């Protein structure tokens, strides 16, 4: 069964450092997303991406965040200068004509 894959599963980084979270969406999907989930809380939308550009972003997705689809298969989320409050699970999702499917997530810990 096709699935969304994310790497790494766990990333520990120092405050102020840049991180790149990677995702391989399901191959025939056209819509791509990043969500985050702070421990014990609900899943929050960050950004959606379609036709090689951002289609929508939330207030959380400020200038420190960027997304890229560099090679037609990978979909990355970059946080330029991490803050302690960026610590969370980050989920990539992709969607075709049906529901969005989520990856297993990257646990980002900023210390």
């Amino acid at each position, binding site marked *: 069964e096709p699935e969304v894959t994310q790497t790494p599963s766990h990333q520990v980084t120092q405050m102020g450092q840049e991180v790149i979270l990677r995702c391989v969406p399901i191959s025939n999907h056209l819509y791509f997303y990043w969500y985050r989930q702070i421990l014990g809380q609900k*899943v929050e939308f960050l950004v959606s991406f379609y036709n090689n550009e951002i289609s929508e972003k939330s207030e959380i997705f400020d200038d420190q965040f960027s997304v890229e689809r560099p090679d037609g298969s990978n979909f990355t989320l970059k946080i330029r200068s991490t803050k302690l409050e960026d610590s969370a699970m980050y*989920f990539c999702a992709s969607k075709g004509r049906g529901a969005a499917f989520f990856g297993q*997530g990257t646990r980002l810990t900023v210390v």
Partner: protein
Amino acid sequence: GESVGLHLPTLSVQEGDNSIINCAYSNSASDYFIWYKQESGKGPQFIIDIRSNMDKRQGQRVTVLLNKTVKHLSLQIAATQPGDSAVYFCARGYNQGGKLIFGQGTELSVKP
């Protein structure tokens, strides 16, 4: 504003019983609703969805009911099994590629 909320944060049921997880929403403008299951340390897993012009949809052991009059959504799980233990989220979507708005989640515990 947009919101999706859940009535109870936890639900405990006996194995074999039916489970009902509820969700309320505040904004009527929505194309569809989805239920996701999230096991510890994993990503949300799609269970079932329902378009806003429908009242009921059935899957394998699951049924989703949508009451637009009272803005209420429910997920019914028949013959609940220990493997059903997880956090269940309702979410709403607005168009083909639009974002999902998630509720807070209900933790379902199944007692053997």
